[in-house]
């Protein structure tokens, strides 16, 4: 059978969801942001909630996420997406409100906002892209940067004495009674993407059940910030990030 015979509408096995726009993403080649955007979009399509979903992203490489997901969107100030989400979800309790935040954003400047939104148990989904670095601003150290990992503000590697240990925000918020579903995933293989999708689906389903905050960390790469190819970034991530940020469900109530 020829390729051209296979490529027919009726044989379609996988294609870009319509909840993604046709805009070309500004992300670097291989950036995890693109994969996670897609997965969220697919969940929105599957649940048929495009009309009822509000995305909120603060600054970070995903500041322009609103160009890619075909839903209403709020662009928040650095670290403050959970505050916007709190208001949005309280004022429109029948909507699916999610934040999409980087590790610099959520774990550094936005630490108070995420902890309090989770503690109040706001009925929202939090997607936490942990690439261990500030991608957007040129690769500075994040609270999540691993020990010894070089960044533009830790050029000789993160020094625990100066900067403390990498911060495990996900474990931290799992301690708060307001969160009901807390999980850590990744998106570097097809299998990982499938699992991630299941988790995000569950998180959005939790909104239906008014279960409070669902929090999903995605351990990610930033090939530009890490100064590695996308492929090498995945390898580095598996070898270095996964041991420190172990994947799995941390809390499911």
């Amino acid at each position, binding site marked *: 059978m020829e390729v051209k015979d296979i490529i027919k509408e009726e044989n379609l096995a996988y294609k870009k969801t319509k909840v993604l726009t046709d805009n070309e993403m*500004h*992300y*670097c*080649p291989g950036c995890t942001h693109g994969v996670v955007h897609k997965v969220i979009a697919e969940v929105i399509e599957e649940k048929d909630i495009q009309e009822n979903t509000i995305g909120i992203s603060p600054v970070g*490489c995903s500041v322009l996420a609103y160009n890619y997901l075909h839903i209403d969107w709020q662009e928040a100030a650095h670290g403050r997406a959970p505050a916007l989400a709190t208001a949005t979800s309280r004022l429109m309790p029948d909507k699916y409100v999610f934040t999409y935040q980087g590790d610099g954003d959520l774990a550094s400047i936005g630490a108070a906002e995420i902890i309090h939104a989770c503690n109040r148990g706001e009925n929202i989904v939090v997607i936490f892209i942990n690439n261990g670095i500030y*991608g*957007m*601003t*040129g*690769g500075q150290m994040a609270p999540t940067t691993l020990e010894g990992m070089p960044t533009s503000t830790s050029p000789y590697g993160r020094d625990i004495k100066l900067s403390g240990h990498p911060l495990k925000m996900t474990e931290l918020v799992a301690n708060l009674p307001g969160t009901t579903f807390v999980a850590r995933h990744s998106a570097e293989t097809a299998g990982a993407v499938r699992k991630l999708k299941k988790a995000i689906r569950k998180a959005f389903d939790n909104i239906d059940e008014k279960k409070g905050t669902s929090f999903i960390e995605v351990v990610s790469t930033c*090939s*530009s910030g890490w100064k590695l190819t996308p492929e090498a970034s995945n390898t580095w991530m598996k070898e270095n990030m996964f041991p420190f940020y172990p994947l799995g469900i941390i809390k499911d109530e």
Partner: protein
Amino acid sequence: MKEEIIIAGFGGQGVLSMGKILAYSGIMQDQEVSWMPSYGPEMRGGTANVTVILSDEKISSPILNTFDTAIILNQQSLDKFEEAVKPGGVLLYDPNGITSPPARKDINIYKIEGAEEAAKMGNPKTFNMIILGAFLKIKPIVKNENVEKGLEKSLPERYHKLIPLNLEAIQKGHDSVKSIQTV
């Protein structure tokens, strides 16, 4: 003397450091210099450009709309800056990846096979030095000795061993200038 230059290409082609060496060379001969990059969210594969000015007098604006010379290293940059060359000015480009070459009739156009020459030298990293050499052949605004000093100053100590290779590439650039159009 005043020379206003734009250098533009992909990030990673050494655009910024080429400009830096040029600027440092200017300092070595006691000129005023400015080096102003376009800056943006740091992301791979985007375009990068830098405006470099060397002048005997104080420099007013480091950001310009027109240039004496444009050094162009990809198609996007050509599209963007061809019009910005002053009439009678110089446009210098590497044809690698250029699909529609410059078309202006009122400027001097040079083609430098920098990428190719660098590959030939077995060191693609010397690409930008070849281009720089070609530019300095066309516009010898800084003396060779000052270029050497500029290289020394702009490269961190640990790279100083590479200076001879760079000078060689600059020389190679001198020899690679191909005039396409003179006005």
